[in-house]
């Protein structure tokens, strides 16, 4: 069972054995065969000359030499795994593109597939000409170069980022996991604690908010409570080990773990410490939540606990009855995921899924659930519970309180319908 060099800890061994035992029981002696196909999977033409007992052609000649790719790209056989860009938008300067969640494993989003939301395009910024200004209610207003920022003590943390409108409450609902919640990604971020930078200027009494501004053509502006700025907020210059991509705010962005994406100001150029929020257009007319009564909730920062099954999920197909691992992701802006429950009988019964360790705060958590599909129509879904005890609600529960004019913070459970032919589709569409 154990791979050579695999470190066997007791908990891991126990859960692994339990997984195998349960998996075997669920399989009920069925032959493990076939699997899962994506609708966009490469329909490779199988050449029998490359199959046993023959020696495949790629073993009969040397491959590409060293240096044929100075910056590596995925295999050409994976070229269908790309960002999910909505078609026929009226314009693409203020728009968003989604991560293909259903095609990814683990919890880290590759930088090239990280979701994007821009309000006026992606600026091309020369880091040598980029400055961060820190002013307002501080003892000493300061200007930093990027070299300055990188001189501060650094830290790296893994956190998710999620757009507040992911998805909307009104139909039509999307077909795939990416269509539904693809404005979500997770990365290891490196930068400096915002608290250290604020202390460098010295906060004055009355400092309650920090107004952050981007150096894009929208000069996007949001106000952040000082408590968050002095807690886990970061100024980030690297993502998954390399410098930020332009789409993610190169050369500098704000990271507010657990807060809605648009507040994590990209291309960060200015921080103004203030006694009050600035009441920018984004935090009054845009990222506010309209209730059925006509009132609107403002300063709704946190992304609440949420999960989705990514495999099998909408647009995929189960090729055969038998064993299929159900796998998905869970996350909460309020901290760690405590538990994920999975139902395979249209929500009548729920069972606890396995969580991939380590479970990190305000990061994606991968969950898995062994399942034997009997070939009958089924509805599968997942439900996240975070460390505050909050339970991910159903769409009906959300709509009953918020109505469908509420554009943001939709963290509904999203069930997938599996038809007798194995086709997976959105059960709420």
């Amino acid at each position: 069972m154990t791979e050579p060099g695999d470190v066997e800890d007791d908990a891991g061994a126990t859960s692994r054995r339990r997984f195998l035992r349960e998996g075997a029981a669920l399989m009920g002696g069925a032959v493990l065969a076939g699997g899962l196909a994506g609708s966009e999977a490469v329909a490779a033409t199988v050449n029998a000359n490359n199959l046993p007992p023959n020696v495949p052609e790629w073993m009969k000649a040397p491959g590409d030499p060293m240096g044929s790719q100075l910056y590596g790209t995925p295999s050409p056989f994976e070229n269908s795994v790309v960002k999910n860009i909505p078609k026929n938008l009226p314009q693409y300067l203020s728009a968003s593109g989604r991560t293909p969640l259903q095609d990814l494993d683990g919890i880290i989003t590759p930088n090239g597939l990280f979701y994007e939301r821009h309000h006026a395009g992606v600026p091309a910024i020369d880091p040598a000409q980029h400055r961060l200004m820190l002013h307002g209610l501080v003892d000493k207003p300061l200007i930093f170069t990027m070299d300055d920022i990188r001189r501060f003590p650094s830290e790296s943390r893994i956190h998710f980022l999620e757009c507040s409108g992911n998805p909307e409450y009104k139909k039509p609902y999307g077909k795939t996991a990416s269509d539904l919640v693809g404005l979500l990604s997770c990365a290891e971020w490196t930068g400096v604690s915002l608290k250290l930078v604020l202390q460098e200027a010295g906060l004055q009494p009355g400092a309650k908010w920090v107004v952050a501004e981007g150096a894009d053509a929208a000069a996007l502006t949001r106000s952040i409570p000082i408590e968050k700025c002095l807690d886990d907020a970061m100024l980030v210059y690297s993502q998954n080990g390399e410098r930020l991509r332009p789409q993610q705010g190169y050369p500098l962005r704000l990271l507010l773990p657990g807060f809605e994406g648009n507040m994590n100001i990209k291309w960060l150029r200015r921080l103004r410490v203030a006694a009050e929020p600035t009441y920018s257009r984004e935090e009054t007319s845009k990222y506010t939540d309209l209730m059925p009564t006509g009132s609107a909730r403002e300063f709704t920062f946190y992304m609440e606990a949420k999960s989705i099954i990514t495999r099998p999920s909408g647009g995929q197909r189960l090729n055969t009855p038998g064993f299929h691992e159900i796998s998905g992701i869970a996350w909460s802006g309020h901290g760690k995921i405590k538990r994920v429950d999975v139902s395979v009988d249209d929500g009548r019964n729920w069972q606890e899924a396995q969580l991939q360790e380590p479970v990190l705060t305000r990061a994606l958590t991968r969950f898995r659930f062994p399942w034997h599909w009997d070939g009958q129509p089924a509805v599968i879904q997942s439900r996240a519970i975070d460390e505050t005890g909050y339970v991910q609600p159903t769409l009906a529960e959300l709509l009953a309180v918020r109505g469908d004019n509420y554009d943001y913070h939709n963290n509904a459970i999203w069930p997938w319908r599996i038809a007798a032919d194995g086709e997976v589709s959105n059960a709420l569409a």
Partner: protein
Amino acid sequence: MPSRKLYLAALAAFALASATSAQAQSPYGIGRAATPAEIAGWNIDVDRYGNNLPPGSGTVSHGREVFDQQCAACHGAKGEGGLGDKLVGGQGTLATPKPVKTVGSYWPYAPTLFDYIRRAMPQSAPQSLSNEDVYAVSAYILNLNGLMPADATLDAKTLSAVKMPNRSMFVGDPRPDVKNPECMTGC
């Protein structure tokens, strides 16, 4: 050696004093002072009270000209929307199945209009309008929404005094607001 002891004590005291004063100033000594002129050039924030609005003014009639040239292509000739947001109308629709959010129906504070237009509009050339043009086009959009007479002139004082119809409709964040009973079996 008393003198040597004294020297070491003084050195230690100096080091401590320097460290303490550096601590109070800036722990890492990174960055340089931002000058008032630099801050003034970059700080274009206008808050809900109109603080930091610049001098200058603009009329509704001049705003119509600016709007026709700079805004109408995306927002429609009368602010009815197009590639850009609908800017006019929608009052009374927010509690209906088809709410129409515009400057007139939804925006809680008028100075935000100046702030946003100056920093981000027109989309093809943000921060290109003069302050006078921004006042004027703000005045015109308010006029289209019935919030400013056609002969009005807008400046820092008059813009700050505009009371937007939807101002009182914003509330704080009451979440968690939705409870899932966490049923496990026979649900």
